[in-house]
């Protein structure tokens, strides 16, 4: 400062400029520090800022065992209308395409004849908790109950245990009137190359006289099922009134009574109609 004053005596206008520059610099520095402090406070005041690992299972949602709760809701809805005459939608493979899932959810909400939705697996890319949370956020916007089954991508990392926390068991069944829904976990490679629980499936397929809807993520013609194709086919070949729904391939295939859904981005939604023992379907395009 002394130097500036002594120089100022020699050239007053230069001195003024220097003083102004110094003041400006100091002010900018102060503003910067205030901004940093403000930013730090505003960020710290938010929640969920400290993240420890994308692989942990610390879910930021209270939703637990949602499939069981939604099955109860489905049964309540159907008991108010009819347990033998209803429609449901099939979706799958949304991965991280949340915009498209959002559009599909809106479309389903606008179709009042659809009573519930079945999600046929692969709601994540890498089975990470924030992927499950993001998908769940979209699915929760459905005005109707939804049931989800596990996909191969959902198995990665801690995906299986996250799925079990959020949705419940990966092999489960439920019945609506004379219609039985069998949700079968047939993931092989991502499940340490383990054989699917065909014994459980055999027991569930037997002794049911009404319609059976078998939902599993991977269709038997896909590569992961190659070692078990014959066993699976032998289980299902003589079952009457069996309808099978799959995801995984990202390509829509109509082999009625078997349907393979496509990825959510294509926005093609099979809607299944049940009327007594008759089951038929329509393929809807949502735009």
């Amino acid at each position, binding site marked *: 400062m002394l130097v500036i004053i002594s120089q100022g005596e020699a050239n007053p206008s230069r001195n003024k400029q220097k003083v102004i520059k110094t003041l400006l610099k100091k002010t900018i520095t102060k503003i*910067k520090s205030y901004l940093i402090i403000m930013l730090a406070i505003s960020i710290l005041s938010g929640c969920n800022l*400290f993240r420890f690992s994308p692989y942990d*299972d*610390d879910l930021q949602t209270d939703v637990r065992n949602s499939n069981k709760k939604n099955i109860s809701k489905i049964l309540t809805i159907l008991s108010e209308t009819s347990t033998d005459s209803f429609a449901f939608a099939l979706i799958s493979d949304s991965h991280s395409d949340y915009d498209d899932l*959002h559009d599909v959810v809106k479309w389903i909400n606008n179709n009042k004849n659809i009573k519930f939705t079945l999600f046929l697996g692969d709601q994540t890319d890498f089975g990470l908790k924030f992927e499950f949370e993001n998908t769940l956020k979209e699915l929760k916007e459905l005005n109707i109950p939804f049931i989800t089954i596990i996909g191969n991508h959902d198995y990665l*990392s801690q995906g299986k245990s996250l799925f079990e926390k959020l949705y419940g068991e990966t092999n489960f069944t439920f019945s609506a009137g004379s219609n039985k829904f069998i949700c079968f976990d047939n993931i092989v490679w991502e499940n340490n190359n383990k054989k699917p629980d065909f014994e459980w499936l055999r027991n569930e397929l037997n002794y049911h006289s009404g319609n059976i809807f078998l939902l599993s993520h991977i269709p038997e013609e896909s590569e992961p099922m190659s070692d078990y194709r014959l066993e699976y086919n032998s289980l299902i070949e003589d079952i009457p009134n069996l309808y099978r729904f799959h995801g995984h391939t990202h390509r829509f295939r109509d082999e009625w009574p078997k349907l393979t859904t496509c990825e959510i981005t294509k926005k093609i939604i099979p809607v299944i109609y049940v009327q007594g023992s008759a089951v038929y379907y329509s393929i809807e395009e949502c735009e």
Partner: protein
Amino acid sequence: MKSMNKAMILIIILQRVIYADSFFSKLIPDHIVTQFAGNQGIISSGIGYSHELFKRETNTKIMYGFMPESIAGTDIHIFCLKRSTCINEYKLGALSVKTSLKLSVLLSITENTYISWPEHFPEGYYFPNAFHLQPSLGFSFNFNPSSNINLNNVWIYTDLGILDMHLYHSIKTDRINILGNINLSLGLVYYLQDLYSGDDV
């Protein structure tokens, strides 16, 4: 107490001997670091090297963090390589502030997470899912109010980071808010440099 002093003297002698050799001196870190959160486990610690790149102070840190099964559902081991470049530095009285751009490479060893996938997967079926990148903006602070206590070597820092997948999702979709995916970490750096150069710490 005497044995402690002897041990300290031995460590200092060893450090000076190693430091005298130019090859080994490059292997000796000039700072140690410990961090809370930031997708590196609850607490991660490691060593760091400072150097100058394009006339800017640059740091490379190698860190290890851990999350036990009781907290994370499964054991998670996290190895991190963090590179930072100082973009701005200024003083406010006794407070020094550095702003840095950082990039971390995170390798997590945990359940169903791979660098190379097991043999039963066809080649290229999945990308390796054990690696993540995390860019961040860091603010480091050093406060040295008194000439009696030298705190020049102790810096605390906070990083505002975003994981690659969060960033990707935020860009890809309107349904994800980028601000909701920013994570915060807090850390402490202790510079050892003066110990080697013989200056008082």
